[in-house]
């Protein structure tokens, strides 16, 4: 017998052009919570996909409880007692909890029917043992995201997994739900399960993990005991240099109202109102944050503001000018910059060169015009030469680099460069640091604050509460398409905002800002 539940020794996996895992050795002890820490692209997901049989390693061996195995596919992994809770749930929405759990391995009665009764009993039993508190007969579409995640956990417990992999499980949860998940993780361990937790959030690791393996650029940096390692140390190992946690932020100097949203309603993709009766102001020199869990109408709000989605009712004014029905181009010309949530779908033309992407909104301006409808490619290229050092964009072949071949952080810097260089009065920023590494995040945060200090109005949508708390001057919490409350950042604490994100309306804050008198 071995002390280790899982041993992955010398795992190497390459994809065209990248070495995702370079001779990685990971040893997970029986009945521990083992965190796998690393930035995006460090190789965490690849390593776990290999363990779960989704990929085959180019080299290396895997041992489960001391026995060498070749994991062919996810079914094989399941048979070996390995289960995975994916970041994106794989649930059938109009099925009940139990129906989802048994899908693919339905128990039968003697007559060949699906034995839903015994399955429900077993689900209830499992739910009780691990304190999951899930109602077996509830429909998936009627339960919260946190509950849905528990259904995913039950799904693998039902299949007798004793090694559970969690892939960034907190990305979609509110702070309260995160707390509950942490308790569940501890309980699972105490009941004898082994847990691998993939994350890039240090707080979570400090809270629940016993040991932590840090990956950077496909290599193992170290495996450490969490209890004896500080957050700063962990962060430094993850990034490869010391990291600043708090931003140096001067107090905001808000001026005139730039963006005014009044009673805005926006229809979502499925016909229902995704944004309901939303009112908000953004002033010069302040960052207003919209906190909320993904899917509560933030994306639709941003799309309505920027003209990508029609408005059902309400009014939007920029600098006192009504832009409710303005075209996208008119909004750009009215001084609205937009850093979109999905930089590959909206932000960039990936097959274009960097310089072409940098003029995506300005190519029609006078400077780039040449006679006979021509585009002045020399000026386009010069524009890129000017912006590249200014925004520290790393691009192998300078202006001629294809956007596709740039890293996520540099793509985002390019978008930022383009939007800020438009000198907009107002920047609508959605998820600016999603999927970026710590270095790039620091850079982008600093840039946004600098723009605020120059007097621009900034509206920031983010699903990362830390980001909102760090950057914003005022915070609006959004839940089910409504703005539940707006608080000043100085008086905000994570749990109050968390409660608002979950839809609980707050009474007047105890320490209400007396002088500002701004109420949206």
């Amino acid at each position, binding site marked *: 017998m071995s002390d280790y539940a899982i041993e992955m020794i010398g795992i*190497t996996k*390459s994809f*065209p052009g990248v070495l995702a895992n370079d001779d990685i050795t990971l040893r997970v002890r029986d009945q521990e919570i083992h965190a796998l820490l690393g930035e995006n692209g460090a190789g965490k997901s690849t390593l776990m996909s290999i363990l779960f049989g989704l990929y085959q390693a*180019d*080299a290396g061996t895997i041992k489960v409880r001391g026995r060498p195995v070749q994991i062919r596919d996810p079914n094989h992994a399941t048979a070996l007692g390995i289960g995975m809770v994916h970041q994106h749930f794989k649930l059938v929405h109009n099925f009940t909890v139990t129906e989802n759990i048994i899908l693919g391995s339905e128990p039968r009665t003697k007559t060949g029917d699906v034995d839903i009764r015994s399955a429900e009993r077993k689900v209830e039993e499992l739910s009780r043992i691990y304190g999951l508190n899930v109602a077996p007969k509830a429909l998936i579409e009627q339960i919260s995201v946190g509950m849905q995640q528990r259904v995913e956990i039950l799904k693998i417990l039902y299949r007798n997994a004793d090694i559970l992999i969690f892939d960034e499980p907190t990305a979609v949860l509110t702070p309260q739900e995160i707390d509950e998940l942490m308790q569940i993780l501890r309980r699972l361990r105490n009941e004898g399960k082994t847990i691998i937790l993939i994350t890039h959030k240090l707080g979570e690791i400090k809270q629940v993990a016993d040991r932590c393996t840090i990956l950077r650029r496909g290599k193992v940096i170290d495996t450490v005991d969490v209890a004896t390692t500080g957050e700063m140390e962990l962060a430094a190992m993850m990034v490869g240099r010391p990291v600043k946690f708090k931003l140096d932020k001067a107090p905001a100097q808000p001026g005139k109202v730039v963006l005014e949203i009044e009673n805005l309603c926006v229809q979502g993709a499925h016909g229902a109102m995704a944004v309901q009766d939303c009112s908000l102001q953004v002033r010069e020199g302040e960052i207003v944050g919209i906190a909320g869990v993904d899917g509560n109408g933030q994306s639709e709000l941003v799309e309505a503001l*920027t003209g*990508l989605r029609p408005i059902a009712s309400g009014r939007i004014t920029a600098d006192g000018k009504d832009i409710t029905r303005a*075209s*996208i*181009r008119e*909004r*750009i010309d009215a001084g609205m910059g*937009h850093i*979109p949530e999905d930089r590959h*779908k*909206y*932000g*960039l*033309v*990936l*097959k*274009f060169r960097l310089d*072409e992407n940098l003029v*995506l*909104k300005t*190519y*029609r301006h006078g400077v*780039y*015009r040449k006679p*006979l*409808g*021509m*585009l002045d490619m020399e000026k386009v290229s010069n524009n890129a030469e000017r912006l590249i050092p200014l925004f520290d964009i790393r691009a192998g072949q300078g202006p001629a680099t294809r956007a596709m071949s740039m890293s996520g952080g540099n793509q985002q810097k390019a978008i930022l460069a383009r939007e800020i260089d438009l000198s907009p009065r107002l920047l609508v920023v959605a998820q600016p640091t999603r999927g970026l590494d710590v270095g790039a995040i620091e850079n982008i945060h600093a840039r946004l604050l600098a723009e605020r200090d120059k007097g621009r109005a900034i509206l920031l949508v983010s699903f990362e509460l830390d980001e909102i708390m760090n950057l914003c001057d005022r915070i609006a919490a959004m839940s089910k398409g409504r703005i539940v409350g707006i608080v000043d950042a100085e008086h905000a604490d994570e749990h109050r905002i968390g409660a608002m994100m979950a839809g609980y309306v707050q009474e007047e804050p105890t320490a209400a800002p007396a002088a500002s008198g701004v109420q949206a």
Partner: protein
Amino acid sequence: MKKERTSSRFMATLEHMLSNDSWVSILVIVLGFLVGTLLLLVIGRNPAGMYAAMLQTLTGYDITRNVWNARYIGEWLTASIPLILCGLSMGFAARTGLFNIGAEGQYIVGLTVAQFVALYGPQVPVLHWVLALLAAGLAGMLWGGIVGFLKASYSVSEVVATIMLNYIAFFLSRWLTMLIPGTNTYRTPTFPATARLTSTLFLRLTNESRLNLGLWVALAACLFYWYMIEKTRKGFELRATGFNKEAARYAGIKVTSTITISMSIAGLFAGLAGAIVALGSFSYGRVLAGYDNYGFNGIAVALVGNSTAGGTLLSGLLFGMLASAQPLMQGRQIPKEITWIISGLVVIFISLRGGVRLFLEWRAREKARLRKETME
């Protein structure tokens, strides 16, 4: 050891070439000819006959009888003109992210309108055929533009719409042409000479071939295509829309009008092709009995030409060569179908590019594994 190094160098070169679209096209054409040659060997014919026929098409020189006749060059270019234009039609739409399977319909509309102008237009030298070309181009623009408009405004699939319009164009053309007095089941009365695209210069140079003024139109179209797509602000919008429609919309580009414009210009090219065939290769209007297929072959031309102006010109010349070499092959006991096989192979191979890439990746993986094993 040495052998392995050369093979890995070969693979590296291959990989490099596959990352470049022009090289892929050339590679694919060579491969197509290679397989065609093998096929001939298998059925016991001498492939030299095929190459001799191709040489004769390209240069007019008959290697077996040692005679030279420039007419073959003229016929080759004549066959290439509509292929180039229809390739441009397909390519222009493709650059904007659209699949213009309707070049055939746009071609037919152009051809029909050109025939009408030829029969009823003012019989003034030059003006007559210029008018016919213009009218045909406009008709093609309209035919393509309808599709673009429907796509942009109502999200009607351009594939379905163009296929439907191909049928409408075909039967409309037959019906309208039959209404012309003096028309029998297959032809109208003869065109007046002022409507023909005849060029005395070409007649003299190419020994009375059907090569006509359409050649200049095709070359001008290539130039216009290149200028429009690569150099202008409108071209920037077209390309941005083609690569990423959502990003184009986000940037304030009016995607709906861009799509309409793109399909109109695609239609313009195909409409001109129709007019050039009608007024260049025929002295009378035709009641179409079936598709001429230039529009459909244009898809292959654009594919091999990577939808660039220069590439489409060259690949149009290649496909034109294959088509006009057919009769010469038959005279040399080579089944003419081999040309269709070769062009088919070229299209298949170019579509296989993804597969070849997968193979190279697999090889790289295997190598990494082997290296690891030998190290252990």
